[in-house]
């Protein structure tokens, strides 16, 4: 009975979505807004090879700030939410292969993460992606070395400092540049080089650090609900 009701509702919902498909006609050319972003003179104003990055960090940087804030919030909430005495668990020891592979892979993964966010304005990728890769290195570590101490102070510090830098740079844009999150507070550099696009690589790097730190923190909180001792 209940399921029938749900089926009816979902069917109705599907019917409601149908006009959207009906009115959808694909795109033959860029929308006016996108055209603006893709115009040469405007690209040069930001000087980022990756247009998505230009939008994410500069044009719509406030969204990104919100996004960072959401991860920050989640980490903070989980931190106090899952606090409390942990329950014991017993683990079977990890296999040698796994541990050895982890030893090799973790530094590489961290490096790769850093690479991704530092090149966010030049190639696919960016702060979030890089941060996520770093966090996956951390998760691998948790699995391989469950007893290893987690430097949560370090990660907390990383998180705060990168957040502050982000906000600071953004505010600096409002103070000395033409607006909040203006990337031209730093020299725009040569199009296509690592040191270009003004503040974008700096901001994205710190976003990457922050995301990495936050996700690691979250993972640590989940982990520490159970302990081995």
């Amino acid at each position: 009975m209940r399921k029938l009701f749900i089926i009816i509702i979902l069917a109705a919902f599907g019917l409601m979505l149908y006009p959207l498909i009906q009115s959808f006609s694909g795109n033959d050319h860029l929308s006016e807004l996108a055209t603006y972003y893709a115009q040469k003179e405007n690209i040069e104003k930001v000087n980022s090879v990756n247009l998505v990055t230009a939008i994410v960090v500069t044009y719509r940087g406030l969204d990104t700030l919100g996004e960072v804030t959401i991860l920050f919030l989640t980490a903070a909430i989980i931190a106090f939410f899952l606090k409390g005495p942990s329950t014991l668990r017993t683990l079977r020891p990890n296999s040698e292969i796994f541990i050895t592979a982890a030893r090799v892979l973790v530094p590489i993964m961290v490096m790769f993460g850093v690479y991704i966010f530092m090149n966010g304005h030049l190639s696919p990728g960016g702060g979030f992606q890089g941060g996520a890769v770093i966090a996956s290195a951390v998760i691998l570590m948790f699995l391989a070395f469950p007893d290893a101490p987690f430097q949560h102070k370090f990660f907390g510090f990383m998180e705060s400092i990168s957040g502050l830098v982000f906000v600071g740079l953004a505010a600096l844009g409002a103070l000395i540049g033409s607006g909040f999150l203006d990337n031209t507070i730093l020299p725009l550099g040569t199009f296509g080089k690592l040191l270009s696009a003004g503040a974008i690589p700096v901001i994205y790097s710190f976003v990457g650090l922050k995301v990495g730190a936050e996700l690691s923190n979250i993972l640590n909180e989940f982990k520490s609900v159970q302990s081995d001792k």
Partner: protein
Amino acid sequence: MEYVSLTIGFIVIIAGLWAIMTNRNILRMIIGFSIFDTGLHIVIVSLAYVKGGTAPILDSAVGINEAIDKIVDPVPQALVLTAIVIGLGVTALMLAYAMKLHKEKKSLDIMSFRDLKW
């Protein structure tokens, strides 16, 4: 092509909602949310597609002067990035909730958590 991905996106959305609304297990519900979010992301990206366009990253294939004609819309791509991260945050928080709820009643059945009502 874009119609297909759009329709698939919608189907995934409805599938996600179905999962949320019919599974009494909280973890399955959370998975339902992930599916729902994924559907949304597919829809967003489908809307960004421009016929014959490529990724909005300027390189040897797409010069700075011809960007307008060759790339797909970068805006939804930026938005979907944000949306994904938000979805991640929400999922993480829900999982934390699920842990706490389980700790409270040793059950993951949503029906067990009806202390507040009326």
